[in-house]
């Protein structure tokens, strides 16, 4: 079974990567399995300076999901280049750097510094957990376009734009990214949510709101990818609630070319490897002979073509 896939900047042996922020820089999970088994690693967000992030509690449990408001805690781009990337390079796994910022300048600066050391950039204009930057770039097509354009100009590697689902029209955002020169899309970041503890009468998360992830959001992500696949000619890295090889197939059929697994790493730290192991059999069971063949399958099927069925 051919699991490999070629994406801008990423020639990966399988379509499975850990999602940004759910895998730090890989060291912890390298106790669980050999990171070279992964298609790629998407690193935790990098900002220019180190950030401590939000107060605690930073996570809360919800029905089939969780809220988080880490607040982009990270050691800063220089430390990531110096202390984290060499470890991943040594493991021989393709690397995607998740870039965040408060201002266009910060996005540009971080990309300039980090892009020579990685295979692709995931531009995080969609983090709901920081007051400035982050999500406002991700909800206004024009602001998004501006930051993407400048980042693309300075980047040494292809730029994937990570879209926020907290918008009225996801297609409009995808088009803005495409027009601004993005090489791919990463969909989706978390949905803004809140949980209130009746005992304390305050939000459980110290930040008040947090980002909702996990199985609960999968239908929303699948819908958005399905919409965007039809409207924009960019490869999509799909994510949101993936927990099994069947879920991966659902994302491929909707239009994703590869996927990222986030919160499920907390349930089961071996999940990425397990999904990779199950993927060939799963594709086979549903009549596919490669990952490539499944991508966008639901659109082909809808068009009445049964060509994809082997």
């Amino acid at each position, binding site marked *: 079974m051919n699991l490999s896939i070629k994406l801008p900047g990423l020639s990966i042996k399988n379509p499975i990567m850990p999602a940004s*922020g*759910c*895998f*730090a820089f890989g*060291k*912890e*999970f390298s*106790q*669980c399995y050999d990171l070279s088994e992964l298609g790629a690693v998407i690193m*935790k967000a990098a900002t220019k300076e*180190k950030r*401590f*992030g939000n107060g*605690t*509690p*930073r*996570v*809360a*449990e*919800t*029905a*089939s*999901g*969780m809220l*988080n408001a*880490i607040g982009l*805690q990270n*050691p800063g781009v220089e430390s990531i280049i110096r202390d984290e990337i060499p470890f991943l390079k040594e493991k021989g796994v393709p690397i995607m750097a998740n870039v965040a910022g408060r201002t266009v300048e910060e996005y540009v600066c971080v990309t300039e510094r980090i892009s020579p050391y990685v295979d692709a950039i995931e531009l995080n204009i969609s983090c709901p957990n920081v007051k400035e930057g982050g999500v406002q770039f991700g909800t206004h097509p024009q602001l998004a376009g501006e930051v993407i354009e400048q980042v693309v100009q300075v980047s040494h590697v292809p730029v994937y734009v990570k879209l926020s689902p907290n918008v009225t029209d996801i297609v409009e955002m995808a088009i803005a990214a495409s027009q601004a020169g993005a090489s791919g899309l990463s969909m989706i970041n978390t949905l803004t949510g809140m949980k209130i503890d009746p005992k304390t009468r305050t939000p*459980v998360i110290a930040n008040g709101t947090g980002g909702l992830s*996990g*199985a609960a959001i999968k239908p929303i992500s699948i819908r958005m990818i399905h919409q965007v696949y039809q409207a924009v000619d960019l490869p999509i890295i799909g994510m949101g609630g993936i927990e099994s090889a069947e879920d991966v197939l659902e994302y491929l059929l909707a239009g994703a070319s590869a996927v990222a697994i986030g*919160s499920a*790493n*907390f*349930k*089961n*730290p*071996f999940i990425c490897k397990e999904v990779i192991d199950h993927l060939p059999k799963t594709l086979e069971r549903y009549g596919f002979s490669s990952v490539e063949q499944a991508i966008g399958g639901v659109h082909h099927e809808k068009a009445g073509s049964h060509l994809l069925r082997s």
Partner: protein
Amino acid sequence: MINELMSILSHEPLAEDTYCLVLHGKMVHEIKEPGQFVHIRMDGFYLRRPVSISDYDPLNETITLIYKVMGDGTEALTKQNHSLEVLGPLGQGFPIDQIHANHALLIGGGVGVPPLYSLAKQLRRKGVSVTSILGFRSKEEAFLLEDFEALGDVHITTENGTLGRCGRVTDVLSEMAGNCDMYFTCGPTAMLKAVANDLPDTPGFLSMEERMGCGIGACFACVVPSKDEKGYKRICCDGPVFRAEEVVL
């Protein structure tokens, strides 16, 4: 660190809303020191639940947990009787091999008591004298009293006065402090802070709690500000046990 389907050898109520759970499996062989914890997965709950290892026995391959019902997850835990998916051992415990003390003071509040038990046993084995101050809400919620008494002096406090001194652990702390040359404490953060403030000149170790995502250091959910250059510690992997001077409470 392994993820193991551990069988449940016994699962009994120990005190009001408090249960003692004995698990069997290979994980025990990976435990480095007392004060480490496990991360328990249960059907129907998206996040795992962290619980300290209260005691462990490599010979019989058992791990003992003591937990209190605090919400839906621990409530559901009480109904498990066959096996449990457990990730562990996690974190850094009390560095028992590096501890040089004559007389240790252990201060535990509520479900902060369990991780101190295995510590107490190992301190005794090293020849360290142990005095314990154990605080509970009420007599009904108290547990492990005889076990600690077998290892040294024990002072009990309860908030409602139904057992021992009426009040909090800190109310008896001053009286004990002079005798000890090192302290070890586990409980709510407010208690840790009070203890650390009361014993500013005694070297001490704190075992902390925070809501967790991954439990292995990857999600940055469980940070506490620290005094070093990095500025933070992750409770799940740099802790849960810290030297009192490392962290900012």
